[in-house]
């Protein structure tokens, strides 16, 4: 087993990985940018190395600086977390060449699964059902028009180099196609450096169901059950749960077997996730493989009792999986909410800034993986995820109520967060009935506003706080002078 591991990431996932390393007796090395010199991963690791300015390209994406940090610290392995370099085959390869173990799949598996059309071909040949559509990319919009006619609208144009919900556009009719094609291409070029596109049928009202797999370097591949991730906004997941309300034991077995077949077909090693779309008739189709530990992995952990980071480290250290498929048991029902620094009343505007007060929820069946603390300055340069709140209980309904209680006890003051929005999602009738499909948020939460029944009570609290001097620490300094306000000058937001 390694003696020292470098975590090439930041925020909640870096903290989560450090925790398991510490429990296994491994030394930990954190890396940080200018914006993160006081971040939680720096505070919790044994050592920390400076990478550069806050902008990811100058810090968390700096392959050479990270390898230098590994060399200087003597770290024998690097855990890439998710995002940043986690699915960068060149980084995995560079680690190997530097004599450092990359905790993840082989570079070749990352490369082939990272190209979505290559992945589709691989799966198709392995008899895993794929979404009807193109198996190769094309540069001519007329090819797309022909394919779309053949499989039927609506269709979705996707970037071959994309993934994670980015670089895609739904096209409802032939008239929309040429423009969608052009803007998708330029977006893909900008975001991924590769404008190659392909087309699939758009399965309306489908569910996003994914399977966690673990594969060792001895050819053993197992799955750890599914996660349902249908509550999404702009193709980004917000809420995940396991088990999926839509799966029968038979469907679970069939899809699980398909996930294992998919992993084998790609020569996969370590932890990964095979994503499927499940249509309303109970047919499932391969979507993509995520060649990393995913954000929502905790719901699998709390229902299986397994520590996935531990298994990643053990697999990377050359150990075989210590259990067989038949030995795995899942109990209870779990939900996860991603907590974002965004304002749900203003089209989810990012809301960076200083956290003035923080109280995390606790109690039976509650797990909070967060990367923040009171006084931390949430930076502007990164994805606005503050952490994940996970609950587990005996039944889905008990877990739903537990999540509502946990969210109501989660106090973050100073920045706007999605907590009030999440509470309302969990109280919706369709959610209670488990009717979660990928268009859930669009259908039920367009133009959401926080229920203002409590506004007068908040006013009372204000007055009492003034009188009792419970008002936190007042800001000093420049507030005393005339202060400019942004509101008369603010334009619209765009990506």
């Amino acid at each position, binding site marked *: 087993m390694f003696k020292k591991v470098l975590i090439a990431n930041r925020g909640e996932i870096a903290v989560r990985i450090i925790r398991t390393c510490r429990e296994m007796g491994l030394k930990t090395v954190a890396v940080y940018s200018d914006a993160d010199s006081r971040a939680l991963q720096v505070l919790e690791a044994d050592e920390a190395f400076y990478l550069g300015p806050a902008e990811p390209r100058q810090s968390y994406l700096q392959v050479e600086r990270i390898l230098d940090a590994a060399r200087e610290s003597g770290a024998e392995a690097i855990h890439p977390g998710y995002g940043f370099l986690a699915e960068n085959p060149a980084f995995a390869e560079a680690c190997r060449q530097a004599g450092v173990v990359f905790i993840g799949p082989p570079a070749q598996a990352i490369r082939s699964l990272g190209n979505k059309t290559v992945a589709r071909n691989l799966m198709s040949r392995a008899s895993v059902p794929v979404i009807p559509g193109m198996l190769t990319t094309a540069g001519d919009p007329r090819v797309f028009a022909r394919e779309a006619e053949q499989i039927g609208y609506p269709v979705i144009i996707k970037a071959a180099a994309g993934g994670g919900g980015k670089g895609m556009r739904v096209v409802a009719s032939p008239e929309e196609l040429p423009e969608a094609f052009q803007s998708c291409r330029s977006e893909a070029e900008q975001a991924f450096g590769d404008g190659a596109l392909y087309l699939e049928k758009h399965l309306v009202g489908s569910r996003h169901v994914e399977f966690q797999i673990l594969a060792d370097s001895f050819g053993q591949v197992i799955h750890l059950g599914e996660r349902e991730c249908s509550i999404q906004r702009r193709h980004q997941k917000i809420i995940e749960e396991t088990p999926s309300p839509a799966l029968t034991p038979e469907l679970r077995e069939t899809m699980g077997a398909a996930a294992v077949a998919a992993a084998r077909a790609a020569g996969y090693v370590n932890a990964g996730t095979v994503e499927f779309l499940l249509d309303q008739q109970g047919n499932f189709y391969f979507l993509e493989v995520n060649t990393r530990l995913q954000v929502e992995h905790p719901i699998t952990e709390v229902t299986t009792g397994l520590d996935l980071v531990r298994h990643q480290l053990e697999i990377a250290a050359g150990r075989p999986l210590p259990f067989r498929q038949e030995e795995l048991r899942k109990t209870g029902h779990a939900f996860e909410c991603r907590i974002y*620094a965004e304002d749900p009343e203003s089209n989810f*505007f*990012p*809301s*960076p800034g200083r956290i*003035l*007060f923080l*109280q995390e929820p606790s109690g039976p069946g509650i797990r909070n993986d967060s990367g923040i603390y009171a006084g931390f300055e949430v930076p*502007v*340069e*990164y*994805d*606005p995820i503050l952490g994940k709140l996970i609950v587990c209980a005996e039944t889905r309904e008990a877990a739903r109520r537990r999540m*509502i209680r946990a969210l109501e*006890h989660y*106090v*973050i*003051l*100073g920045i706007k967060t999605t907590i*009030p929005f999440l*509470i309302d999602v969990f109280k919706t009738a369709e959610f209670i009935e488990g009717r979660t499909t990928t268009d859930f948020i669009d259908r039920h939460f367009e133009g959401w506003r*926080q229920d*203002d029944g*409590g*506004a*007068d*009570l*908040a*006013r*009372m*609290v*204000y*007055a*009492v*706080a*003034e*009188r*009792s*001097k*419970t*008002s*936190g*620490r*007042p*800001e000093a300094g*420049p*507030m*005393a002078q*005339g*202060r*400019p*306000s*942004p509101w*008369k*000058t*603010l*334009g619209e*937001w*765009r*990506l």
Partner: protein
Amino acid sequence: MNYPLKIQDEVETLEYLPVKEKDEARVTIKNTTFQVAFQAIDAHQLRLLVDGRAVRAFVAQGPGEKHIALNGRVYRVQEIDVAQGRRRARGLEEAPGEVTPPMPAVVVRLLVAEGEAVVRGQGLVVLAAMKMETTLKAPFDGVVKKINTALQTKVMPGDRLIEIERRNAS
């Protein structure tokens, strides 16, 4: 004592009358009066009994406003100086000719130069934050008096990025 309190766009005036002990009051809002008793638990936590009903509240002081959390809902409450229709609290006044970011951000494009005439709504500076971009626009017709920032500078709410002197369009 009266507190005109604004949440989002709504202002309601609350009347606060202390009753005998310091930790009790009669509070009137929207013509309804409540009996309120309270305990300050610590710098950020209050427990209230509103007509006997227990309420647990968390409070943090922000610039010119209090952030208040009640059972999962969060409110930003500002005290208003009704006569002038502006935010009050320790001399806070708006200076509308000064262009400032709504949140911490990075300057990615400057669209005007000092001395340039601008019209209301004209783009002045483009900011980026958390992978999104926004343009700050001129609040009225005028002339760019001063640019206090530069490309790639990190800026915060309260920073005076650009000063515009109001001038009627001729």
